[in-house]
C-alpha cells in the first residue's frame, strides 16, 4: 500500500467510525483498558472548546497514538469535529518548551526549576499587592482553585483574573442580574427537544460543530427544527437556517426590545408565568447588577417606542422579521431555545443584551421546559468549571461566593482554615485594568509590577495590544512570567518562561457549557522538564512559606496546600513526590465544600472518574447514588426547586422570581466614519482554536487553514479595486496588520463590514481591536470597531494617503 492509499484508508476508517458511533449506542470500539494492539485506551474531554466532547485516547509506548470519539459520552455520542480528531497531535509540535528559561540581556538562558520558583516567590514576597496571576478558562479546575487560594487566601490581594473575562463575563453578569446566580438553567438536551433554535450572533457550525451536527442530525431523522440566524455576517451556519437576519452591529438590543414590545402589544406574552415568576428592572446610572425596580406598566411604557418600524430603522432588519420572531415567541405550542456565545458577550452592552434575551424568554414563558431555554455557550473547555464555578475572576470565590461579602469571606476562611479576617474584601483588577496597570510606570498608576500568565496567550488575545501588552516590555521593573507549552507571542516577550505539561500529560478536571464537570487521569509524561501548572503554583506557594510569608500558613501554622498521607506530610512541592498522592482529588474535595452555598453541589471525585461528566447540582440520593440535574429551577428535575413548577431560588429580589430588564438601545462607542469606514469583527475558524498555539502545530489543521485573512464583501472589494488574495492593510486608530483579502469566502460580511480571525500569530489583529468594555462585566468588545482597508502599492508600500 502506498502513502496515498494509506491516507485514503485512514480517512475511510475515520469516517466510518464517525458514522457508526453516532448511531450505535452499544459498546465503544475503543473500550477502556488494554486492547489487542497493545494500545491502552482511556477517557478524557477534548482539550479545545467549551462543548465538552469526550474522546478516547489511545496510548502506546508512552505516546498518544490514537484518538476516537467517545461513544459513551452524552455530549458528542462518539462524534468529534476536525480539531477533536487531531487533538492528540497538539502534544507533539516540534518546539515544545522543555526547560525553564530566564531572559538575560535579551536572550533566554535555561535555568533550574529551583531558581525559577525562587525568582517568582521573591517577586511575590517583595510586593505582594503588585503580583498578579492572569489565568485561563483552560486551567483545569484544580489549577484554578490552587491559583485562587494562593492569591485570595494566601497573598490576600485578589489580584487574579482569567482570560475568560474576555470571552464570557457578560454571560455571567447576565445570569446574575436575571436569576441571582450564574450559569444556564438548561443544557444540551434542549437542542434535542426544541422546535425553534435562535442563534444570536452565534456560528456553531464552526465554533461548536459537534453541537451543530447534533441539531442538524435531527433533520436527517425527519424532525422539523426551525433555525433563525441573527447575525452581522453570513457564516457557515447561515445556509442551514430558514431565516437570516443581518443587523447593524450593536442593534441586537433593539431586536430583543422589539420582540418584547410586540409580545405585550399583541397580548401574547405569558401573563401567568410573568405574574408568578418575574419582577421588572431598569438600569441605573451608574449601572448595577440590581438596577431599579419598575412595574409591568412602566416596563410596557419603556419599550413602547421599540415598534417594528423603529427597530428596522436602528437595526436594518425588516420589520416583518421582528414580527416573525415575536409571533414565534408568542406561541405556547412551540419550544424555543436561544444560543449565544461571543457575539453577545464581547459587546460593550454585553450584560444588557444578555439580560434582554433572558427577558424575551421569561416574558414569553419559554423557560423551564425541555427545549425552552436561553442558553449561553462558552468558548473554552473550563470557562464555566474553572472561572465561573471556582471563582477565579477578580471579585470571585469558589462556589459562586464573592470577596466583597463578609459572610462569604468567613466561609472561605473556615474552609481554608485561615485566621479570621485574613482575606481582603476589595476585588482585584479585571483583566483589562490589570494589563493597563502593568503597562504603565508605577508613578503613573502602574501598581502591578509582576504578572504570571498561565495557560493563555494574552500577547495575541488581549484587545488593543499596542496599549495593553507591549508597553510593559520597555518599562524597567516590570516582570512577565509565562507558563506555557509552546513559544507563543506572550512567551517570546516574557522575562521568565516555565515549560508546562498539557492535557493528558497531567491529571485534570474541567467544566463545560452545560454545567458538566469532567475528569481525566494523566496518561503520558510531558517532554523534558515540563511540569504541571498546578505543581508550579504549589511550589511557589511553598517557597513563600519557606521564606516566611505569613499568608502561606493556615491558622495552625501548616502550609496552606498541605496534604497528609497516613498522618505524614507529602512534599508535593517537590515534583518527585507530586504524584505520590492525587493532588487533583485533594484540591477538588476541598473545593466541593464551597459548592453547597449556591446550590452548585458537586459529587465526590471518584464519581467523576467513572462518568463522562455530571451536570451540577449533583445531589446524593437516599440509596447513596449521585444524581445530576439537567434543568435548573424546574421542579420536575431540580431537587432544590420545591415550591412551584419554577422556583428561582437565588432570586435577586429574594422572592423566588427572576428579573426582566429594560435596557435601552445605545449607539456603540466607536462607529465607522469618513476615515475608518468599515466595521471590523474578529473571531475564530473551525480549524483553529483561539490563538492557534496548539492547532497551528497540527500539520493537518495548519495546512487546512495556514494564514489569517480579511473577509470582504464583493461589492466593497470591487469598489476599492481589491482582488481576491491580494495583500491589503487593515488599520484602525490603534494599529495595523497586513493580510490577504478573501472575497466570497467562507463568511460573507455585508457591505461596509470586514472579518479577521485571530488564530494567526504572524497577523496580530488584536493590535487593531478596541479595548472598550461593558461597564458591569468588564468584557471588551472584539466584534466591532472602526477600521479601514488600504491597498498596498505594487512594491509593497501602502498607497500613500489613499483611504479606500
Amino acid at each position: 500500500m502506498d502513502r496515498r492509499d494509506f491516507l485514503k484508508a485512514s480517512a475511510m476508517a475515520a469516517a466510518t467510525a464517525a458514522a457508526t458511533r453516532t448511531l450505535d449506542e452499544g459498546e465503544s470500539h475503543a473500550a477502556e483498558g488494554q486492547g489487542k494492539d497493545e494500545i491502552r485506551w482511556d477517557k478524557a474531554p477534548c482539550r479545545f472548546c467549551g462543548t465538552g466532547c469526550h474522546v478516547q485516547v489511545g496510548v502506546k509506548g508512552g505516546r498518544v497514538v490514537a484518538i476516537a470519539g467517545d461513544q459513551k459520552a452524552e455530549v458528542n455520542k462518539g462524534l468529534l469535529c476536525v480539531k477533536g480528531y487531531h487533538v492528540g497531535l497538539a502534544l507533539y509540535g516540534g518546539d515544545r518548551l522543555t526547560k525553564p528559561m530566564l531572559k538575560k540581556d535579551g536572550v533566554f538562558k535555561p535555568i533550574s526549576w529551583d531558581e525559577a520558583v525562587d525568582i517568582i516567590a521573591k517577586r511575590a514576597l517583595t510586593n505582594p499587592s503588585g503580583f498578579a496571576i492572569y489565568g485561563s478558562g483552560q486551567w483545569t479546575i484544580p489549577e484554578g482553585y490552587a491559583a485562587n487560594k494562593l492569591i485570595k487566601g494566601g497573598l490576600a490581594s485578589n489580584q487574579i483574573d482569567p482570560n475568560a473575562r474576555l470571552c464570557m463575563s457578560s454571560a455571567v453578569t447576565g445570569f446574575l442580574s436575571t436569576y441571582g446566580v450564574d450559569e444556564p438553567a438548561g443544557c444540551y438536551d434542549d437542542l434535542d427537544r426544541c422546535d425553534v433554535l435562535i442563534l444570536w450572533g452565534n456560528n456553531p457550525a464552526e465554533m461548536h460543530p459537534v453541537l451543530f451536527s447534533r441539531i442538524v442530525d435531527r433533520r436527517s431523522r425527519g424532525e422539523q427544527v426551525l433555525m433563525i440566524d441573527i447575525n452581522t455576517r453570513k457564516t457557515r451556519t447561515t445556509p442551514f437556517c430558514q431565516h437570516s437576519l443581518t443587523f447593524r452591529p450593536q442593534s441586537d438590543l433593539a431586536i430583543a426590545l422589539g420582540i418584547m414590545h410586540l409580545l405585550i402589544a399583541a397580548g401574547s406574552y405569558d401573563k401567568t408565568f410573568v405574574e408568578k415568576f418575574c419582577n421588572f428592572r431598569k438600569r441605573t446610572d451608574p449601572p448595577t447588577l440590581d438596577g431599579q425596580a419598575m412595574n409591568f406598566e412602566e416596563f410596557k411604557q419603556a419599550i413602547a417606542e421599540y415598534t417594528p418600524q423603529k427597530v428596522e430603522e436602528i437595526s436594518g432588519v425588516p420589520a416583518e422579521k421582528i414580527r416573525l420572531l415575536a409571533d414565534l415567541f408568542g406561541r405556547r405550542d412551540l419550544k424555543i431555545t436561544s444560543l449565544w456565545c461571543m457575539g453577545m458577550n464581547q459587546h460593550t452592552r454585553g450584560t444588557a443584551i444578555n439580560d434582554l434575551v433572558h427577558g424575551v424568554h421569561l416574558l414569553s414563558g419559554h423557560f423551564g421546559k425541555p427545549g425552552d431555554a436561553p442558553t449561553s455557550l462558552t468558548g473554552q473547555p473550563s470557562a464555566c468549571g474553572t472561572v465561573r464555578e471556582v471563582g477565579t475572576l477578580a471579585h470571585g470565590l469558589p462556589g459562586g461566593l464573592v470577596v466583597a461579602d463578609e459572610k462569604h469571606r468567613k466561609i472561605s476562611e473556615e474552609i481554608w482554615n485561615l485566621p479570621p479576617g485574613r482575606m481582603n474584601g476589595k476585588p482585584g483588577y479585571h483583566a483589562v485594568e490589570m494589563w493597563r496597570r502593568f503597562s504603565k510606570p508605577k508613578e503613573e498608576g502602574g501598581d502591578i509590577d509582576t504578572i504570571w500568565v498561565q495557560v493563555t496567550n494574552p500577547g495575541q488575545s488581549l484587545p488593543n495590544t499596542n496599549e495593553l501588552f507591549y508597553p510593559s516590555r520597555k518599562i524597567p521593573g516590570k516582570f512577565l512570567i509565562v507558563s506555557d507549552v509552546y513559544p507563543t507571542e506572550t512567551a517570546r516577550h516574557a522575562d521568565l518562561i516555565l515549560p508546562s505539561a498539557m492535557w493528558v500529560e497531567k491529571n485534570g478536571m474541567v467544566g463545560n457549557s452545560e454545567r458538566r464537570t469532567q475528569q481525566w487521569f494523566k496518561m503520558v509524561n510531558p517532554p523534558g522538564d515540563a511540569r504541571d501548572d498546578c505543581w508550579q503554583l504549589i511550589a511557589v506557594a511553598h517557597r513563600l512559606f519557606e521564606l516566611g510569608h505569613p499568608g502561606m500558613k493556615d491558622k495552625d501554622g501548616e502550609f496552606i496546600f498541605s496534604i497528609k498521607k497516613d498522618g505524614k506530610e507529602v512534599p508535593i512541592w517537590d515534583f518527585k513526590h507530586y504524584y505520590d498522592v492525587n493532588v487533583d482529588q485533594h484540591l477538588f474535595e476541598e473545593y466541593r465544600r464551597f459548592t453547597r452555598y449556591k446550590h452548585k453541589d458537586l459529587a465526590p471525585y471518584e464519581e467523576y472518574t467513572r462518568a463522562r461528566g455530571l451536570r451540577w447540582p449533583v445531589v446524593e440520593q437516599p440509596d447513596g447514588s449521585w444524581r445530576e440535574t439537567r434543568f435548573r429551577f424546574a421542579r420536575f428535575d431540580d431537587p432544590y426547586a420545591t415550591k412551584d413548577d419554577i422556583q428561582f431560588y437565588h432570586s435577586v429580589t429574594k422572592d423566588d422570581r427572576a428579573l426582566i430588564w429594560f435596557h435601552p438601545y445605545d449607539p456603540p462607542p466607536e462607529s465607522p466614519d469618513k476615515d475608518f469606514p468599515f466595521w471590523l469583527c474578529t473571531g475564530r475558524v473551525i480549524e483553529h482554536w483561539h490563538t492557534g498555539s496548539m492547532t497551528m502545530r497540527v500539520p493537518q489543521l495548519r495546512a487546512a487553514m495556514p494564514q489569517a485573512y480579511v473577509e470582504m464583501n464583493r461589492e466593497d472589494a470591487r469598489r476599492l479595486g481589491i482582488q481576491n488574495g491580494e495583500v491589503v492593510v487593515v488599520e484602525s486608530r490603534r494599529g495595523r496588520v497586513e493580510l490577504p483579502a478573501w472575497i466570497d469566502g467562507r463568511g460573507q460580511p455585508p457591505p461596509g463590514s470586514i472579518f479577521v480571525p485571530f488564530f494567526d500569530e504572524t497577523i496580530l489583529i488584536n493590535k487593531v481591536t478596541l479595548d472598550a468594555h461593558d461597564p458591569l462585566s468588564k468584557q471588551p468588545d472584539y466584534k466591532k470597531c472602526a477600521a479601514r482597508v488600504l491597498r498596498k502599492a505594487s512594491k509593497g508600500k501602502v498607497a500613500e494617503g489613499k483611504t479606500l
Partner: protein
Amino acid sequence: MRDARFSLGELFETKLPVVAETKDPEEGEALVTFLLSITGIVFVDVAYVSFSEEIPHRMEA
C-alpha cells in the same frame, strides 16, 4: 453515475462515509458546498483531514 472524486463507504442508516481527494483546501471547501447542494444531503461532518507531501492531494472524509 459515479463521481470519480469520491470513494463511498457503507451506508449506516442515515450516514454515509465518504472520502474525497482535492488538490487544495479551496477545492475542499467547494466540494463540501457541492455535497450540501445535493438533494437528500443534510449535513457534512468533517471527520479526518490529511495532506500528502508526496502527492499534491488533500483528503477529506
